[in-house]
């Protein structure tokens, strides 16, 4: 045996040991290359770092899929990597690809661009660790690491105005305070999760939720206390009403790239934490009257709060943020439908993943355009949706504006298109309501399951139980329909604002915003800077153009969504094409999870 063979054998055994983290190995290579020119401001090197990152993400997606189908599921003391984790990893990498496009467009000319890309890659790495983690200590540590990386990324993205130690404008100071508030809330939720885990350790001395479920210790009241604290922490982590203040305040002022990070990394991380606890949730929620009622209440609060909030505001940022709350509310209602026996476990997971995919596919192109406009119209001018109408005034952008309007119209499909269908292609709620016999049958099955488990010590009669659940289901359905109707109203409102040809309102807004800026900045002697910004805005208003690449990029999303909607219609009328499994539709994730 030569030295070369020994070396190859060593490499081979090393590669075997790092499965299923081949993706992370690729990212580490990309980071190693980035380190050589981290502080460089040369354009060519920035392009090189984008190419490296793109290649790394695409390679990580391919390697994860190929290695999984070659080596199969992986399970160890700390990690667990099965088909579900593979789907989530690919989804996160796909989101990362989109966010990288966003970062590249918005921050290319900044001095710290290479550093931002580096922090972005470390965030993705920690996210992959978090997805694969199974051990309680690993779940907690990797979760905090993800949040740390998101914090570093967001602070470096908002480090726009001054690079020194002193904050020079009042706006920057406000952003700093909002970032602090936002991450202090997430720090509190982390501390609460730590307390929850301490109670679970106290009651069980076990290392993972699967182990806890396999023993009878799950029924220990201290475990229940720990779980209640953890679920409350997730509630706080997701900034669900009435704790949304820090989140809503931050999204109004921060850099637009940070918004995509918050929506698709931070909040998605919270949802995946919820999915990590899915086995415990499935165990406790099935037919539990208290959990069902609590879920219904939270869902209703989210839907109402999200819809009323988005109707009240004219800001694109806040509209999208509140719509995210509405989607979150609809997902929580889906959890309620699971606890009332209408949905099964797999359908619930399908609804979660496919809706997140669809939200991402609509938010990215829409917000890419919105952020570009925001950049041109300077900060708070784009606070008003009416500024979208400037698109129509430019003759070169007619096609672009039509694309934008179609994108907005397609927004309701994030509720209808994917996830809320049963295998037979029916809406699960309507199917159950129309066929009251099947609903009654499902509830009696649920009652039988609970009787068998005998975990809730039910003292009520079947008729009372059935009536209570029927009331809950009808209330949930009523709010589900209200949520969708409100969403439609919001979409129509946005379209009307875009189409309406009235420039007076936006001009008044520009003047008022200028005045506000001048008043705010008096304390910090930045009137000169403010006047410069105002003049720049006036120039931008006259000379307004997108680059060719920026014009072409949203078309890809547009084509994707159109194809997805066509497939949705085909699915609805029960036509399934032969090559259906080969496309990148969210519905395929459903098929994969089936």
């Amino acid at each position, binding site marked *: 045996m030569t030295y070369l063979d020994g070396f190859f054998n060593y490499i081979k055994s090393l590669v075997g040991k790092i499965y299923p983290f081949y993706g992370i190995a690729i990212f580490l290579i990309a980071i190693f290359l980035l380190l050589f020119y981290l502080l460089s401001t040369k354009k060519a090197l920035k392009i090189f770092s984008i190419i490296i990152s793109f290649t790394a993400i695409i390679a990580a997606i391919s390697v994860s899929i190929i290695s999984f189908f070659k080596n199969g599921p992986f399970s160890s003391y700390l990690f667990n990597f099965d088909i579900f984790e593979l789907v989530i990893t690919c989804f996160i990498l796909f989101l990362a690809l989109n966010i990288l496009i966003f970062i590249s467009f918005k921050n290319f000319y900044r001095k710290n661009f290479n550093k931002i890309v580096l922090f972005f890659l470390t965030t993705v790495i920690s996210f992959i660790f978090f997805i694969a983690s199974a051990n309680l200590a690993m779940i907690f*540590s990797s979760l905090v690491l993800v949040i740390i990386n998101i914090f570093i990324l967001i602070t470096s993205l908002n480090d726009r105005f001054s690079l020194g130690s002193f*904050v020079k404008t009042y706006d920057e100071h406000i952003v*700093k305070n909002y970032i*602090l*508030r936002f991450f202090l809330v997430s720090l*509190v939720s982390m501390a*609460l999760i*730590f307390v929850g885990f301490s109670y679970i350790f106290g009651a069980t001395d076990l290392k993972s939720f699967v182990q806890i479920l396999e023993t009878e210790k799950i029924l220990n009241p201290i475990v229940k206390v720990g779980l209640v604290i953890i679920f409350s922490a997730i509630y706080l982590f997701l900034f669900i009403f009435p704790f949304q203040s820090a989140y*809503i305040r931050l999204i109004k002022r921060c850099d637009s790239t940070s918004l995509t990070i918050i929506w698709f990394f931070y909040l998605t991380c919270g949802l995946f934490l919820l999915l990590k606890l899915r086995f415990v949730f499935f165990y406790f929620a099935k037919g539990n009257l208290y959990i069902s009622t609590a879920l219904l209440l939270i869902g209703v609060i989210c839907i109402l709060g999200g819809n009323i909030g988005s109707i*009240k505001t004219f800001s694109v940022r806040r509209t999208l943020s509140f719509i995210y709350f509405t989607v979150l509310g609809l997902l929580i209602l889906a959890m309620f439908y699971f606890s009332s026996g209408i949905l099964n476990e797999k359908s619930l997971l399908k609804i979660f993943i496919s809706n997140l995919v669809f939200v991402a596919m609509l938010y990215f192109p829409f917000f890419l355009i919105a952020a570009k406009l925001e950049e041109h119209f300077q900060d708070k001018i784009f606070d008003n949706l009416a500024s979208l109408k400037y698109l129509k005034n430019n003759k070169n952008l007619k096609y672009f504006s039509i694309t934008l309007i179609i994108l907005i119209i397609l927004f309701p499909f994030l509720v209808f298109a994917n996830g809320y269908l049963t295998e037979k292609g029916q809406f699960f709620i309507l199917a159950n309501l129309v066929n009251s016999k099947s609903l009654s049958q499902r509830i009696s099955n649920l009652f039988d399951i609970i009787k068998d488990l005998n975990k809730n010590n039910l003292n009520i009669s079947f008729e009372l139980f059935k009536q209570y659940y029927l009331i809950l289901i009808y209330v949930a359905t009523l709010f589900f329909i209200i949520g969708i109707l409100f969403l439609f109203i919001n979409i129509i409102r946005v379209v009307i604002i875009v189409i309406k040809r009235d420039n007076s309102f936006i001009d008044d807004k520009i003047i008022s915003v200028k005045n506000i800026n001048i008043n705010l900045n008096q304390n910090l002697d930045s009137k000169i800077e403010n006047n410069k910004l105002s003049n720049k805005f006036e120039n931008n208003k006259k000379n307004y153009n997108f680059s060719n690449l920026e014009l072409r990029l949203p078309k890809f999303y547009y084509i994707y969504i159109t194809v997805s909607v066509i497939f949705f219609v085909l699915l609805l009328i029960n036509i399934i094409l032969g090559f259906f499994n080969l496309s990148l539709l969210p519905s395929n994730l459903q098929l994969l999870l089936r």
Partner: protein
Amino acid sequence: MKLQYLNYIIFLIFLLGLCSVACVKKFLSILISIQIILVSATLNFYSFSLFLYSLTSWDKIFVFFGLLTIYIFLILIVFYNYFKQTGLYQIDVLKDLNLFKLSKSDWWGEDNN
């Protein structure tokens, strides 16, 4: 001392931390409140370990890695706050950092000014 009484005390410390997080407005006070919650969690781990699972090392590992990561996060937040100052004492210190506000403008995200 019995485990039961110790747990009551720890739960009281936890509630103290939780209430103070919800009420205080200053940056340092919030940090101290969070530390109180962390102390209650650590005490919880060690009390159970002492009374029930004295032979295991699992709690020490969990507490070590949990506290390590959470303190890195905490230090980063503190560093960010003190690195990014305006240089004007009044603005930096008097700013209200109350985490859970329920005013109308905080509910819908509208500016007062």
